[in-house]
């Protein structure tokens, strides 16, 4: 798994609640059997006009969003389908950090498996970040997973919470399967005890 320690990047604000994984990566792109190359399909139905051309109004298509790697979103981001294609597409597009008041459980979990950091902050704090992103041109945020802080160049510094186990796995890019297999003897013992 890809490690994450600290990241500074351009922020793009997506002022919509309940962004579901069907929007993040629509179903027609789930037919592929690869794990890579989903970035070009990210938010396809929102990013494209009916004739297939790029919609210049869509948040990610605006010139000021070019190169963004921090996504600022509203509550319940990533709800719906369990498709890991959603974090694959976000990561492949270039996002490393997603900030929202809340995330759907499966999506939140899937982000960590792909070297992306989802950060939960209060509604008020997220409102403040939306205001800052609107106020400052080329607004950037720095997420530091070592001390769990989020900061900008305008004297903002807030801490966020990440469960220590996930923090450690992401900081070190640990392979979950490898970690679990360190306890293979316990799996075998469990199976022996329950194979009646």
């Amino acid at each position: 798994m890809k490690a994450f320690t600290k990241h500074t990047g351009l922020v793009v604000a997506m002022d919509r609640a309940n962004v579901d994984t069907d929007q993040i990566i629509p179903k027609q792109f789930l037919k592929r059997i690869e794990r890579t190359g989903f970035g070009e399909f990210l938010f396809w139905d929102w990013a494209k006009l009916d004739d297939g051309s790029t919609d210049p109004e869509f948040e990610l298509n605006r010139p000021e969003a070019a190169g963004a790697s921090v996504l600022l979103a509203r509550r319940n981001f990533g709800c719906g389908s369990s498709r890991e294609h959603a974090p694959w597409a976000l990561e492949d597009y270039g996002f490393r950090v997603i900030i929202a008041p809340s995330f759907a459980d499966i999506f939140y979990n899937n982000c960590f498996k792909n070297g992306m950091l989802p950060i939960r902050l209060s509604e008020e704090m997220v409102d403040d970040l939306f205001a800052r992103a609107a106020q400052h041109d080329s607004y950037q945020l720095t997420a530091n997973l070592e001390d769990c802080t989020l900061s900008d160049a305008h004297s903002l510094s807030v801490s966020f919470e990440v469960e220590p186990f996930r923090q450690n796995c992401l900081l070190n890019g640990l392979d979950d399967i490898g970690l679990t297999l360190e306890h293979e003897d316990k799996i075998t013992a469990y199976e022996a005890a329950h194979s009646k």
Partner: protein
Amino acid sequence: MPTAANPPRTLFEKLWDNHIVYAEEGRQTILYIDLHLVHEVTSAQAFEGLRLANRPVRCPAKTVATADHNIPTTDRSLPIVDVISKLQIDTLRNNCQQFDITHYDLNDPRQGIVHVIGPELGYTQPGMTIVCGDSHTSTHGAFGALAFGIGTSEVEHVLATQTLLQVKPQTLELRVDGTLRPGVTAKDLVLYLIGKITTDGGTGYCVEYTGEAIRALSMENRMTVCNMSIEGGARAGMIAPDETTFEYLRGRQFVPKDYESAVERWRQLPTDDNAKYDKSLKFQAADIAPQVTWGTNPGLVVSVNDCVPKPSDYSDATEQKTAASALEYMGLTGGERITDIQLDRVFIGSCTNARIEDLRAAADIARGHKVSEHVQAMIVPGSGLVKQQAEAEGLDRVFKEAGFDWREAGCSMCLAMNPDKLSPGERCASTSNRNFEGRQGKGGRTHLVSPAMAAAAAIAGHFVDIRDWK
């Protein structure tokens, strides 16, 4: 029996405790998985990961596969036209062969939607942990199993280790007292609950549905309720096993050989008296009317006899924005009577509502009527066995005579990965679980309803209050 040393526990806590392989402060629990269901869309990359790391599937016998999401529902003897879809379906078949996993292929009568065939074949049993790379895995919680959807990295983890790393969720009791009124179904009940708790009300929780109205539900109706737990944000929803559960499973192909001993074990599972949930919410069954969603998430729902809300009906700014955007997408202005909404398409199917009882309910409405001239309606059974049963009962003839299209089993227009989809602007009454933008086809407009409401809407050409149906 609970004692001072063994305090009363909920159903969830018993299942959790029973499946701990390894727990240590400061790390996620390694939880044993009893049954892993696999389908074509979320598994290819997981199998590829195993190959790259040279890892075997730890327990092929606890893994069951079928193709359901991305398959045609038309004549199965014809080749699959979409080459990318065909490759995905072939890949599942090849992976199952390579790793020695049972696979219900397209020509097998037991093929079907993974959440329909698991229970139908008796793989799904009380007390189990069940996972699948699909968020509607919560369906299996209807049997008193701990069942939830996972991502593809976790699919690989389960294939390799037969376990998952998990954070213990909190417990949320949703209790529904009293009796559902005539015409009000399990689908209406769960849509009503999601409308009340909202689409993220269950986030971080495992839900247990309790109360008289839940106990009175058939097994298939319980599956409908648990299926949509994820639409309320809860990864898992469960109902304690009881005689209804045991009778449903008795005699099914893969239930334990010594069935009576298994039932005795399962009787220990229900939540103990005085066990505490982290949160409890209570509802009255009598308050629930047939439900119709009007927006672009399942929580945007009203009773059939209500009007579509306006953004100004909401106080919160984000909710107003959500409502305005949903209305625009749905081609509604707010204030319309639900029963005035005209339809182009009707879809009866999906892991929520494509079991035999759902088809019977739809057929009871359709019998002797004709689908409205301006509506195209299709019925997609949840499995080959459901289809066989429906045909044995003559339901297919009822549907065909009424003008419904009768299809082969699969997920079909619930997510429209296959050729079954809405065209832009088409409005559909659907028995599925998600009304997200574009879910049933780009620009398509989905209203979620029960099977009886969908069938009645197909015939009338607009929504009708099923309680007034003659």
